[in-house]
């Protein structure tokens, strides 16, 4: 076990030394890997932010239930009880009198309202369900519409549906982008590791002749790939951090103009870890392919 750790540590040390021996090309490939990871990662972050934005805009999850103007007080009370049973405390009642009062408060409306022979407005409930997924809202709206004395349920779900479809399309696009850039990352690692193997050909030949196992020969290159990919992940996280920091004030300003407290979300710590892990894993794959091919050609 101790030997196992020592061998892996030694391989890691040899990999670092190899990377440091050609600092410029190492730096360049880490930058390339970092930039390749930034694009899909930024895409995922953008989607997360859009989703948060969609959830934070209240109009998206609000529905209005209008009673018939002829609905009896009993029917209104029934609707109220049913609502409370179905969606406890996720609604509020706007009586026809209150609605008229609100209308009167609007400039220029007072005169028109007072000239009406009777109140034309219905009793209404404003509902804000906690579960605001499009399917739930759809189902809810048809349930409510079937109640006695209900004239009309208004639901702004067309907008939600469109937004949701847009998010799905966005996710698909970013997934494709991620696959393409992952392949690019593997290719970059493949190439740099290949150069490293060829540069170390003499050492590999000698090591084999004096009793090195395949593992001893391959391990440093694997670590080299993992290091490059992982460092690329850190570069990507840094680039995204810089981008978020640069954009945040403008987004906050824009949100304020719309009376919202929306703020851009950056990368959380688990995201950063995931970026580094992805980079490392892809680097490992690239190194593995590269070493296998280069060693086979060297024999």
């Amino acid at each position: 076990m101790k030997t196992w750790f020592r061998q892996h540590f030694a391989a890691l040390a040899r990999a670092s030394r190899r990377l440091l021996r050609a600092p410029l090309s190492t730096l360049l490939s880490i930058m390339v890997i970092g930039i390749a990871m930034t694009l899909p990662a930024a895409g995922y972050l953008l989607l997360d932010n859009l989703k948060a934005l969609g959830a934070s805009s209240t109009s998206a999850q609000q529905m209005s239930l209008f009673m018939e103007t002829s609905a009896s007080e009993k029917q209104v009370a029934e609707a109220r009880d049913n609502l409370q049973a179905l969606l406890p405390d996720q609604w509020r009642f706007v009586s026809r009198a209150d609605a008229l009062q609100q209308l009167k408060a609007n400039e220029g409306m007072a005169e028109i309202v007072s000239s009406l022979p009777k109140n034309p407005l219905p009793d209404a409930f404003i509902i804000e369900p906690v579960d605001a997924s499009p399917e739930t809202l759809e189902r809810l709206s048809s349930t409510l519409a079937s109640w006695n004395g209900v004239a009309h349920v208004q639901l702004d779900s067309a907008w939600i549906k469109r937004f949701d479809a847009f998010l799905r399309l966005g996710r698909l696009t970013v997934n494709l982008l991620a696959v393409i850039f992952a392949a690019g990352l593997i290719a970059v690692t493949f190439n740099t590791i290949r150069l490293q193997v060829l540069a170390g050909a003499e050492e590999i030949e000698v090591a084999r002749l004096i009793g090195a196992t395949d593992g001893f020969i391959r391990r440093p290159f694997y670590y080299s790939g993992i290091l490059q990919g992982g460092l690329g992940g850190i570069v990507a996280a840094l680039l995204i951090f810089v981008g978020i920091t640069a954009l945040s004030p403008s987004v906050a300003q824009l949100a304020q103009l719309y009376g919202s407290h929306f703020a851009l979300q950056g990368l959380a710590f688990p995201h950063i870890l995931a970026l580094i892990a992805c980079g490392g894993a892809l680097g490992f794959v690239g190194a593995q392919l590269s070493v296998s091919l280069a060693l086979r050609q060297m024999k």
Partner: protein
Amino acid sequence: MIVGSQLCKRYPGGFEALKNVSFEIAGGEMVLIGGHSGAGKTTLLKLLSAIERPTSGSLVVNGQNLVALRHAALPFLRRNLGLIFQDQKLLFDRTALDNVLLPLEIIGLSPKEAARRARAALDKVGLLEREKANPIALSGGEQQRLAIARAVVNRPTILIADEPTANLDEESARQVIDLFVAFNQVRVTVIIATHAPHGIPGKDVRVMTLDHGALAS
């Protein structure tokens, strides 16, 4: 203990470098393999160190049948052999000490113990003062002794050297031969290929002579 019987080696081009070679080398023996250029000396050493496989015949080294040796077992066979190549195969991108450290890194020795052993090996061949030198800055005799240090640092049971004195002056050649004699005195089997197998004064050595791939006795 090494036993070869009816060994033949035919290279891919069809050239038959060894023909029906049979021999036995006991543990702790010192053997010189002589013969003209192209006689098959290097080929025989390559079979002994499993760098090449015999075309037919059988070869047992340290109880392992090299003809049937699995690829995965090869490194562990090599760790019991000290190989000194005709072209030395020193690495010129690192110091003399790092060259000697390589076999110890391969077996996963702790850095401290490895450095101690590598220095002891350099000391034995008289190169301790040159540990930080690049091998390219060493003389031919010093390079040969460095190659010996790398071969013995793993404490092998068998030392196999190909023309270790070929390009050395008399004094350097004598130093190198003295080293082999010293290792042989501590029961290391020593096998040396040389085109001019002189006897060694005060030393009982066996000479095997190859002639066009066949053993002449």
